[in-house]
């Protein structure tokens, strides 16, 4: 039974790829808009040989990582304080509640006016997107810590920074990771959007350039590379979680 299940879970995506290949090769109106997987792979292969592929993936990865760090670190710091200190929460909660629902993509034009079309505006928009998700989850994580552990920290003399390091941060860590994962997903969403203008490299640029030249194979290659980057980053984050949250198993 187990073998059948495994076989099925391998067979079904293969069947879908095959169907896709066949449909894309039968001449029809659809052929113009759908590239067969085999040709997408050929395109990717050629891009890997010329080195273009590494350029695109490398730049996008770098931007995402910088923006991710720029958003996650302050998000954790502010989230911990808001979760732990009621006065800080009371002061910042309305601001967060008011700015949280702004679609981050809608902010990009303003950020470009402010910072120019350079890298800083792309890193900033990702940072903002990640910041809010990590902040909200960190705060929820701290507030969800069983009060007994706060008592333990107080009773055993954990003050100030030590309280954050030994109680608040590790106690909220599982929820912080949930926020980081959401943030990472948003980061890849934003990078494709942010690489629309002012760049000559990146997976987002690849997709938009393919759009301009109506190059469906390159567009699908761009989609594939973006997904690949997202998948690899998420896998790395999950590995980090297993390492840093070893008590959750």
């Amino acid at each position, binding site marked *: 039974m187990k073998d059948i299940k495994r076989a099925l879970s391998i067979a079904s995506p293969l069947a879908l790829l095959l169907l896709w290949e066949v449909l894309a090769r039968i001449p029809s109106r659809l052929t113009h808009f759908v590239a067969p997987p085999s040709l997408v792979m050929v395109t990717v292969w050629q891009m890997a040989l010329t080195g273009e592929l590494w350029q695109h993936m490398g730049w996008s990865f770098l931007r995402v990582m910088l923006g991710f760090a720029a958003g996650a670190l302050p998000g954790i710091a502010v989230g911990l304080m808001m979760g732990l200190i009621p006065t800080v929460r009371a002061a910042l909660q309305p601001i967060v509640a008011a700015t949280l629902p702004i679609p981050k993509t809608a902010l990009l034009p303003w950020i470009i006016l402010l910072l120019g079309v350079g890298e800083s505006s792309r890193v900033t928009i990702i940072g903002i997107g990640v910041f809010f998700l990590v902040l909200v989850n960190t705060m929820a994580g701290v507030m969800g810590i069983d009060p*007994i*552990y706060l*008592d*333990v920290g*107080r*009773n*055993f*003399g*954990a*003050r100030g920074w*030590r309280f954050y390091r*030994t*109680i608040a941060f*590790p*106690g909220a*860590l599982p929820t912080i990771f949930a926020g980081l994962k959401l943030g990472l997903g948003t980061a890849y969403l934003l990078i494709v959007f942010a690489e629309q203008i002012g760049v000559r490299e990146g997976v987002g640029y690849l997709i938009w350039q393919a759009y301009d030249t109506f190059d469906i194979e390159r567009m699908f290659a761009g989609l594939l590379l973006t997904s690949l980057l997202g998948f690899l980053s998420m896998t790395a984050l999950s590995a980090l979680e297993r390492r840093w*949250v*070893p*008590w959750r*198993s």
Partner: protein
Amino acid sequence: MEVMSSGMAHAKEDDEAAERIAGGRPCDAVPKIRLRGVTKAFAGPSGEVTALQDISLDIADGEFVCLVGPSGCGKTTLLRILAGLEKQTTGAVDVRRADGDRPLSRMVFQEQSILPWMTVEQNVAYGLSMRGVDRKRQKAIVAHYLEMTGLGRFATSYPHQLSGGMKQRVSVARAFADDPEILLMDEPFASLDEQNRLLLQQELLRIWEGTQKTVVFITHSIDEAINLGDRLLVMTAYPGRLKAIVDVPLTRPRDVTETRADPRASRLYMEVWRQLRDEVLKAKVGGEGIRPAPAGNRA
């Protein structure tokens, strides 16, 4: 001048009152813990709820005192006030500190309280590392208490890998390792099965005897209180007051198995049970209407 003298007279009165409550058994000259008229009220959903009322008592240095009372009698509140985790509404709490370098008190909590994100070792070392004791000494102390509690094999395990009894051993080891002057124990063995409870009681006695630590131990089990304590403080149900103070006429070192067979322990059990029975019944009846209706609310 007038204010001062009247204040002193008041204090003297309080002392006399406490001695009466203590059954005319004065503690040594300066008690380790001295409570005078301690009352704690909480804001409940329908008016104020008095958890503790007018508690006055002295606990001597090095004494093992057991607080016995029905559930919900404010025992835990009293312990949390002693730990500084809560503040009394009125009354005076006076805890004498002997040594500036050691922590004054550490608590062993009732529920699962060892930190899930730390290994057994790190949990036991927690207080020491918060005080900045150097690593080498930390290691030696932790190793000692892990051995005393039979946790050596589990040093690098995480709490979720341990049984309930093991977790409470870690909690006890953590409190002892930090070497406080006073140990506050809030029904630490209540969630364990009978066999484990007896084992841990014996282990606690073994570790404690010779440490000179003052212990305030909360329990709802009369047996447990007799096994462990020098004195039992029997509390009333609602609100929590001191009803009686009973000396345990057993010598130390003690063996919980021998205590079981001791006729003095059986007599004591009956005596304490008579004191407690009414309170348990009262708590049961009061359970439904435990929140006092604010005056004038009833037509």
